[in-house]
């Protein structure tokens, strides 16, 4: 059925009249023009703008350093009454997390199918790293993987995310081209897209009842960003 359907659909599309096809859109040129039109932002302004935009989405930004972020996270967990914090035990951050003395550290170390009820009902918070952030919209970039599974940033009511301020991009386009998401000539155009890539801007929300905003629709009710900055930027 589906192959007949496929052939019929493609045949109908191919037999449709075609005028002169438009040239490929110049997306790079569009963003280059926009970039040239706006005054260049320095690091401090970029950080400032990211924090402001993230605050607009009700993301809580806490400035930390390379050396104290785990301690800050521990303090936040105490303040927010977090008794179980999901983390990736194989990640680069694991050692620091384990050393910080955080209450109820819980590694995501088995397939979700084995422990769904516990994940959904008995996990207060999740901690993940990020691949960067976007200043224009106040957005985190996450590429979950086997070390940091997808549901860590979705199921627990609080999501803590670690973001390095040196990984801030102006916009989505700059982030995907800057990080070479869709591959390049060198890699023979092979896509580097992971199983799942995510942009996250604030905690889960809805305005489906009388356009009134409510947070924590299905995902986290709180999003806390640990923004790693230099000592003097604290």
């Amino acid at each position, binding site marked *: *059925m*589906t*192959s007949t*359907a*496929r052939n019929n*659909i493609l045949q*109908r*599309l191919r*037999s*449709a*009249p075609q*005028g002169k*096809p*438009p040239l*490929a*859109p110049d*997306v790079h040129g*569009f963003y280059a*023009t926009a970039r040239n039109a706006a005054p260049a932002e320095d690091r401090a302004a970029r950080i400032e703008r990211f924090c402001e935009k993230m605050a607009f*989405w009700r993301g809580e930004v806490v400035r930390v350093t390379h050396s104290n972020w785990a301690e800050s996270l521990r303090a936040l967990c105490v303040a927010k009454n977090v008794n179980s914090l999901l983390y990736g035990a194989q990640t680069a951050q694991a050692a620091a997390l384990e050393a910080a003395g955080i209450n109820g550290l819980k590694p*995501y170390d088995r397939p*979700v*199918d084995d422990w*769904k009820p516990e994940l959904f009902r008995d996990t207060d918070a999740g901690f993940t790293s990020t691949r960067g952030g976007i200043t*224009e*919209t106040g957005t985190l970039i996450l590429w979950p*993987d*086997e070390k940091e*599974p*997808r549901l860590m940033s*979705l199921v627990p009511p609080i999501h803590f995310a670690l973001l390095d301020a040196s990984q801030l991009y102006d*916009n*989505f*386009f700059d982030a*995907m*081209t800057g990080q070479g*998401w*869709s*591959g390049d000539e060198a890699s023979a155009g092979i*896509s580097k*897209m*992971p*199983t*799942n890539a995510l*942009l*996250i801007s604030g905690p*889960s*929300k*809805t*305005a*489906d*009842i*009388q*356009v*009134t905003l*409510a947070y*924590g*629709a*299905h*995902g986290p009710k709180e999003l806390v960003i640990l923004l790693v900055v230099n000592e003097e930027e604290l």
Partner: protein
Amino acid sequence: MSAHENSQPLKFIPASEFKQRTSEAVSDELLRKSFRGAMDFLMAKRATQFPDPVALEAQRGLAEHIRKYSLAHLPDLLEQLERNLTANGIQVHWAENAEQANAIIVGIAQKHSAKLMVKGKSMVSEETELNHAMEAVGIEALESDMGEYIVQLDGEKPSHIIMPAIHKTKQQIAKLFAEKVPGASYTESVDELIGIGRAVLREKFMTAEIGLSGVNFAVAETGTLCLVENEGNGRMCTTVPKVHVAITGIEKIVEKLEHVPPLFGLLTRSATGQAVTTYFNMISRPRQPGEKDGPQEVHLVLLDNGRTQAYNDEQMRSTLQCIRCGACMNHCPVYTRVGGHAYGTTYPGPIGEIISPHMMGLAATHALPTASSLCGACSEVCPVKIPIPDLLIRLRGEASHDARPGHAPLVGQGAAKSALMDIVWAGWAALYTRPALYRAFGWLATRFRFLTPPMQSGWTYSRTPLKPAARSLRDLLAERKRK
């Protein structure tokens, strides 16, 4: 015998019924107030996102270009998408119509002995009426978008493509939850109402064997399905169950990943006046070895359902540029007055008026393109610059005439043909192409203005009768010349 066997009417809506529904809708004060308030809110929010009209024009120009480019290469891009998705481990299915699409999804569900399917927001699955097909074989299909969940609880359909429950007040929802959700007590607090929905649906995400979603953009070069949402239910549906089925229209495709940011930026800003949604979810593979969550199987169903009919005509093809932001309905004075349900179609408002005839045939839908004053508010805000009024006029013509020579007839071509109207317009043209006749008519109309009928069809419904002036402009000019 229809020209396109893929375009079968899903639901027959006689033109007369459309008129009756709209006149009921405009006299429903509460409904009018709900929609006016909500549309005002959405219009104001959108406006704050586009303070610079020049920049907006540049963005719309680029977005239109990307969509036109994608459509010009549509068959190639579909094949490229299929190749890359398959290489990534995602199974691709093709469906010419709603029935085929539903059969594919039912088949997948049955293979996995599924009892429950949780659904993220998908207008295409509304289009195919998938829930009924699933229920017919004993599989529960549960909507998990809060708005969709609410309307499903009440046995309704969405009244807006972005805000499905926009027609309901919180009091109505409070009552609905108290009656239908076990253990829920009456509350008008929106936070508490959302909390009730959250608690119910989280249990369902855990137990469902299948998750369904729509697709906002399918990227051919990387084999990636992009989903836009605020709530997180889309992520739940595409991550927790062991099978994920995505369904989309064949037109929702772009060639390159870099084509996504301009469209995504305009989509959310045009829709709800948000610079970005909470989540933008890009899915390229099922769960890989070593990964601990995500579905083990991912399927994509590509649906035609009349889209190739629109594609077959270069003017009507622009209908397929749509990225489903809903801005046209938010800004439509007709939609604001009658609400989404009055249309009786999956897609209401201006976009619904131009796409439904391809999906359901003109016999069922010919009244829709006439339900517009052609004010142009829709095309003014359309982020991909679909010339909606021109397409409405075109469809009015197709509904009231046979196909032009050399053009394939549309499904339901000429469904509104009327010998009387043909005579009226032929008479009109005869009068207005013969100046002497027109002058005589003008002379009579002004001199015998007392004979003007007091009841003038729809006009006098709420207006005093129109009466020609005592003297026409040409009479006055002639008089002035004599003086």
